[in-house]
């Protein structure tokens, strides 16, 4: 079955992103497809490549990246809402350049896109599951 997941909370703040990750992992292990994970609101913080938890703690960002969720062309399907990301200082290279800001922090396993991607995921998947506070 084709699943889409929406994550509304950041890592290390609320359990939602951990639950969402464990759910996604279990779905994949049981033969299902995760067609997209959409990170909205504070959920965009799950995509920060600057995340450095202590070595004995789980690495939520790398956990998401390890799921290797991509489309048929190899583009990441870990999708970060652009408006939510920019207002929280989450930038990829192109957004940083466009806004004349030095440095960028979007992990390469993720991509920035718009809210339409959430609607599309709701239409194209068999199930959309939302995790939040």
């Amino acid at each position, binding site marked *: 079955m084709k699943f889409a997941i929406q994550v509304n909370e950041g890592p290390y703040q609320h359990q939602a992103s951990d639950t969402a990750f464990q*759910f996604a992992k279990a779905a994949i292990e*049981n033969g299902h497809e995760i067609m997209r994970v959409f990170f909205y609101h504070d959920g965009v913080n799950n995509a920060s490549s600057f995340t450095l938890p202590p070595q004995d703690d789980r690495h939520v960002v790398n956990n998401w990246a390890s799921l290797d969720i991509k489309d048929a062309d190899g583009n990441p399907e870990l999708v970060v809402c652009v408006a939510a990301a920019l207002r929280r200082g989450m930038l990829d290279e192109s957004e940083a350049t466009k806004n004349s800001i030095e440095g960028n922090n979007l992990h390469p396993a993720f991509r920035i896109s718009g809210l339409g991607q959430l609607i599309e995921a709701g239409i194209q998947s068999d199930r959309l599951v939302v995790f939040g506070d």
Partner: protein
Amino acid sequence: MLHTVNKSSFERNSLQSCINIIDDTSVILFIEDGVINAANNSKSSMIADLAAQGRVFALQGDVEARGISSKLADNIKLVDYAGFVDLVVEHGTAVSWV
């Protein structure tokens, strides 16, 4: 439908809101702090009837993390994450009460 509840009813009214609108074929899954609702406590009567019908589930890892494995209310079914996935597959639309 599958209704997930992630808050204790000592904290929010989401479980009551869910019970108010739930239909005869839907099930409830408690996750995160929602598993407090699966413990035998002063609010257990809220879910007693649904649980007796086998329609109340709780995520095992979250139950264990909160130390309530030995204090569960009657007829609560425990599931792991794979069981959570199966519930979503089986019951169609998943509604997240947050």
